[in-house]
Structures are given as structure tokens and as C-alpha cells.
């Protein structure tokens, strides 16, 4: 046991390095094209059985071969760049519960416009809102259900400030800073 503990102590820094390498740090890099946007929002998962690890959005119009867009997620805040003009629908989000060792996927209805869905007409910043996960009561043998309610917190301004350190390219940095100035007026 003692030998194992010694090995574990020696391996600990290496394990940390490995974990750090696996994690991806968001980076708002150079825009791919002129007419692309930044989409962002927040989901408070404090009432959910898991945290928020990923969010997926689908481009409905124009129809494309590669319709799915994934987001960076930092503490419930999701954001991504290089979103071209079109009609978009948030399809799924998910996360992991460490103590249950279970991954969860939460699906939005595939038909109709949900509260988060946006139409992107011009390049810019698109705020999908700040939402709170709410569990909907169902029967014992029924599939679990959820809803998202507008929470208003964190505000759009707070989310922009949170994203700003990741804006490595001046295109996005200027865009975020300009919007921050507008919101502070």
C-alpha cells in the first residue's frame, strides 16, 4: 500500500498535466468569413441532475450538409463564433453528474421555435438569453421532463464581460467591447 501511495504521489502532477491537456480553453479566434456571428447565452443548471458541459444548435435554413454547431461552455455560459446567417434551433444540451457517474442529455422538442431559438440575419452578437433549468414533475414510470425559464441572470452585460478574456482576435474583442459600452449607457 505504501509503495502504491508513493507512486500515486509521483504520478499526481503528471495526471494533472494530462487532465489540463484534455480540457479545451475557449478562444475567439479569427472569423471565418465576413458574415459570421457570435452566439451566446447561459443555462443555470443548479436544479438539474448534472452540470452543463455541452450545447448543440442546428441550422434549419438554409439546409446544409453540416447543420450542427457546438458551443464552448464555461460555468453554464455557452458561446461560439463563426455562425453564418440562417435560422437556428437549439437541439440538445448535456452534462455529467460526477457522483452518479452518469451523463445526461436534455433535448428540446424537434418541432417549433423554442425560447432560445434565434434567426441570424446580419453578422453580430446574438444573445440567446439567460435561462434556468426547471424539472417538470412526471409519473414514476414516465420519461423525465424539464423546462427552461427566463432567469435574467447573469445579464447580457455580465456574459459579455465573462467572454471578453477569451476574445483573442480584435474582431470579436471590438464587437464585445462595443456592446458592453452600449449596455453600460
Amino acid at each position, binding site marked *: 500500500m505504501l509503495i502504491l501511495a508513493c507512486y500515486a504521489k509521483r504520478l499526481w502532477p503528471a495526471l494533472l498535466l494530462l487532465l489540463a491537456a484534455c480540457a479545451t480553453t475557449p478562444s475567439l479566434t479569427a472569423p471565418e468569413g465576413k458574415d459570421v456571428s457570435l452566439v451566446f447565452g447561459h443555462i443555470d443548471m443548479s436544479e438539474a441532475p448534472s452540470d452543463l458541459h455541452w450545447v448543440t444548435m442546428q441550422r434549419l435554413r438554409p439546409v446544409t450538409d453540416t*447543420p450542427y454547431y457546438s458551443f464552448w461552455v464555461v460555468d453554464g455560459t455557452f458561446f461560439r463564433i463563426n455562425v453564418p446567417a440562417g*435560422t437556428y434551433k437549439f437541439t*440538445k444540451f448535456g452534462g455529467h453528474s460526477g457522483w452518479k457517474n452518469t451523463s445526461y442529455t*436534455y433535448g428540446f*422538442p424537434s*418541432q417549433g421555435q423554442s425560447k432560445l*431559438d434565434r*434567426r441570424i440575419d446580419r453578422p453580430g452578437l446574438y444573445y440567446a438569453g439567460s435561462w434556468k433549468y426547471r*424539472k417538470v414533475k412526471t409519473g414514476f414510470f414516465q*420519461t423525465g421532463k424539464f423546462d427552461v425559464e427566463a432567469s435574467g441572470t447573469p445579464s447580457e452585460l455580465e456574459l459579455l464581460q465573462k467572454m471578453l478574456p477569451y476574445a483573442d482576435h480584435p474582431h470579436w474583442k471590438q464587437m464585445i467591447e462595443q456592446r458592453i459600452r452600449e449596455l453600460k449607457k
Partner: protein
Amino acid sequence: MKHVRGVLLCLLMGLAAAGCVSGKPHLESLNELQSGDIVLVGRIELVPPLNPKEQQLDTATSGRFRGMAHALVSDRRFDLDDLPISAGSHALFIELGKDYYIRQPRQSPLYYSGSLILLRSSASYSGYMNRNVTIDHGQIKLPGKLKYVIPPGARAVYLGTLRYHRNDYNAITRTEYIDDYARASREFARRFGGRVVLQKVSPPRAP
């Protein structure tokens, strides 16, 4: 909003609930008709029509649902949001935008509870040795709640064209009933001969 967990059993049930089960196939010949059977003729259209790229059908046999719909036509009424697993045996498996010819036991009245179009069916694997399989599905629901009174003695009945208009989010914004009996009758005679006459039923009513 649905909260889907990666449990295969639940998702298989979900697939069944989505109508992704076998439906009654097309009639190829009137010889298939048994005494007590009738032929249902009609059409379901989606406007704008479904682009093949809109259907992400990646699981084993889901490719056969491309451009197809399950229409629930039966002597029973169903709630599209709460379908029993047995609903599949009441479904007609039809191609969107084309006439259907389906054999059905004679029942009157017949209820059209709506249709389901499979939009997405994909599988993802996780866990040790990929033991956990998650099947994700999504569908467009076409509302129904219509009642057809079948004339006594009829062998083939025309149910009309149901044209569903949708928006970019696949929400149904308008439904039209179109009487295209003259064309459908000509096509029926060309396909099956004049042995059985296609009869027009009254326009559908709400049950």
C-alpha cells in the same frame, strides 16, 4: 421539453412512441383485398416539401423513413403526444407528396389522428466497451383529429389530400383539405383497372 437519459429501453420505447414502427404498406394489386377490406386512397403533402438533408437518419434501418410518414388512420383515436406502443399497428406507411393506396379493414367511422415524420434518428455510444447506447430521435407531428364516414358497400374510398404548411421551425402553420377526386379516380382506374370504383367520402369532420 423532454429529458432523455441514455437508457436503451426507454429510447426504444420512445422510438415506438414516435411511430418508428412498421406501418401498413402500399397495395400492389386488388387481389390482395379480402372480403371486409377497403382501399384507402389519398395524399399527404408538406409545404415546403421535405429536403432529404433535413432528415438525419443514421441508425440501422431508419433510411427507409426518408420522405415517408406514418399516418394514424383507425377506428380508434390517438393523441400524438401520448401514443401507446400499439399505435404502430394502426399506422399507414405513406410517401409524402404521392398518392397512397392502403388496404384497411372496413370500419366506419375512421379517425385520422395525425401523422409523424421521422426527422432524426442517430445512435451514440458511451461507457465501457460502448455498452451504453443512446438513440436520439426527433419528428414532425402533423395534426389530425378528423373523422371520415365510410359509405356502406364501398371497396375503395378517397380521403382527399391533406396539405400541411410549415414554417422554418417545422411548426404547422396551416392545414388544407384538397378535393382532387377526379385526378385520383383516373389514376386509381389506370393502376388497378375498372373492377373497383373509387368512391368519394364526405369531407372530413372533426370527431
